């Protein structure tokens, strides 16, 4: 499948293949991620969408080496940064992967920062560790970074502690810290979920501006389709530890092919006065990942489910160069054709 995704001449910055992660718990083994492939191009944004517990955070955390092992375990797969394996390694060509090559911002900046260190010291720390600057140089650079993140009165703010910052300002500080070592990939795990819409708009603008300036790739993890529509170039929809649909943002929004993607869109109100629809919730709940179903994970909630769905896992069916959907409906013997799905959705 990776050949197909590689059709574009542009070599992929990061390629993840068949990644699977499980956790030992008292209740048994949770298969959190069950074979995930995705890739990111330089300067582009990949959004990973899905509901809580679908494995979107775990898949990127395992890449960063942020999974505690044990209880966590990467059972298979590879993640290659510019062609070189990063899973299970801390350094790549003398440069640390975590922080220097790939950095990350989190949903809740308040609990992700050290409450006993000033913001400036915390931003200066990776500069001292990864780039070998002196404290004084690093602190000066920290102020520059805070300015880049559009924090007013950066020199004064750098000497303050996290509790003196508002949620939006903390997220800016987190971004300043994340970009301090000029990473090639920024992973943003629900970066705006805890923020108000006006602050969310500011943070998203900031991320886009920084991406234009530095050319870094962004992997955006979110459950908000509005944020996806605004930020993403490519979208991967995850469900129960697998990617069920992947494509460009237009493919996924205008030519949604997987019943789960269609279901998500029908469950949200749209604000187009010409296309009003009743909200259609997705009934039921996600499958138990202690004993993941043999067939398609979405089968139990899917309105189009067939006998085969329960027993056999579907393959990825390509609907375009970059667009695939993992669903039996695309099989040539399927009674319902995906075209009819679009039709149903549009009418």
């Amino acid at each position, binding site marked *: 499948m990776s050949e197909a995704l590689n059709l574009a001449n542009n070599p992929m910055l990061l390629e993840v293949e068949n990644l699977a992660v499980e956790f030992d718990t008292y209740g048994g083994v949770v298969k959190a991620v069950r074979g995930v492939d995705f890739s990111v191009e330089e300067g582009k944004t990949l959004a990973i969408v899905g*509901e*809580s517990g679908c494995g979107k955070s775990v898949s990127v955390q395992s890449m960063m080496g942020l999974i505690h092992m044990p209880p966590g375990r990467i059972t298979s797969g590879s993640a290659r940064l510019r062609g070189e394996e990063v899973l299970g390694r801390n350094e790549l060509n003398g440069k640390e992967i975590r922080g220097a090559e790939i950095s990350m911002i989190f949903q809740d900046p308040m609990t992700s920062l050290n409450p006993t260190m000033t913001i400036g010291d915390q931003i200066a720390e990776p500069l001292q560790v990864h780039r070998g600057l002196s404290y004084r140089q690093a602190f000066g650079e920290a102020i520059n970074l805070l300015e880049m993140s559009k924090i007013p009165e950066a020199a004064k703010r750098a000497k303050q502690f996290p509790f003196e910052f*508002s949620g*939006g*300002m903390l997220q800016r500080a987190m971004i300043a810290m994340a970009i301090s070592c000029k990473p090639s990939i920024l992973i943003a795990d629900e970066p705006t979920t805890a923020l*108000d*819409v*006006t*602050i*969310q*708009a*500011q943070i*998203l*603008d900031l991320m886009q501006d920084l991406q234009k300036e530095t050319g870094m790739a962004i992997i955006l993890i979110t*459950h*908000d*389709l*509005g*944020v*996806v*529509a*605004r930020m*993403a170039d490519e979208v991967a929809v995850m469900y129960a530890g697998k990617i069920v649909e992947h494509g460009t*943002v*237009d493919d996924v*929004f*205008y030519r949604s092919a997987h019943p789960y993607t269609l*279901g*998500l*869109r*029908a*469950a*949200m*109100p*749209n*604000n*187009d*006065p010409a296309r009003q629809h009743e*909200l*259609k*919730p*997705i*009934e039921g*709940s996600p499958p138990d990942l202690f004993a993941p179903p043999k067939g398609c994970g979405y089968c139990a909630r899917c309105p189009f489910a067939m006998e085969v769905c329960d027993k056999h896992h579907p393959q990825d069916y390509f609907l375009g160069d970059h667009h695939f959907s993992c669903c039996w409906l695309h099989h040539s013997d399927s009674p319902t054709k995906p075209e009819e799905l679009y039709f149903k959705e549009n009418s």
Partner: protein
Amino acid sequence: MGKLLETNELTRYFDIGRNQRVHAVEQVSLAIDEKEIVGLVGESGSGKSTFGKTVVGLHHKTAGTVSYRGEQLPQKYEPRDFQRLATKMQMIFQDPYSSLNPRMTVGEIVGEGLRLHSDANSASIKEQVAVWLTKVGLQADHMSRYPHEFSGGQRQRLGIARALILEPEFVVCDEPISALDVSVQAQVINLLGELKERMGLTLLFIAHDLSMVRYVSDRMAVMYLGSLVEVGKANEVYFDPKHPYTEVLIGSNPEPDPQVERGRPSTAIQGEIPSPVNVPPGCRFANRCPRVMDVCRQSTPELIPLKDVDRHVACHLYT
């Protein structure tokens, strides 16, 4: 349709030490008709939840009044006021994790209202609890379980069952869906809509998800730093905002449609909601407003009706 509930210059301050006062809700006048859903939106810290809690009596009123079917409610609730009004007004809380007592079974939680407010015997309470659990999409045999055995969406349904089992007329829903996944949000919204149809509920729907509020509500009220800045029909306010703050708020709401998003200019405004402690005079939005004038910093605009549209706006642009 008559007015069910009306607040008149309702004000709630919190004293937080010497000469420090949080102006959480300041002179909010809002009337809610029978069988109407009013959506209340605003950023965090704008006083939405405080307003909701003050309306149902969970906070006492610093000034102003709340009247319910023409009867003025007490400034500070005594236990007997709660006893009397609990059958008419209820609240669904934001956080389904902290609003259910972990030591009580679901049957006790949902049935507590009936036990306190009706003469039903325990057998008939049990029966009604079972009926309500099925109404909100759970099962009757969940009654003997504890809250920790349920997911977030299921807990939110327990909160709904608990609030509605007394068949109140008026319910304040404080962010009932913000802790839930998209697919579950639609379940809860549809459930509320269904119950509204069946029981003739009146709802004050507090939320920060603008798309959802537009979808659910008949009218929308926008709050900023303790005051209402705009009130009108939900669709009209969303598609044709008049107050600069409403414009910013709606412009910042990302639409799940890539083409719309690409064609839209960035509307992010600078700054954040200021502290509600010791608020300066003048319009509260003045320091962030893109269309600020001199007068805005001196006098506070009143919430006044507009001439040609059915809308109330508090802004000097329209005075």
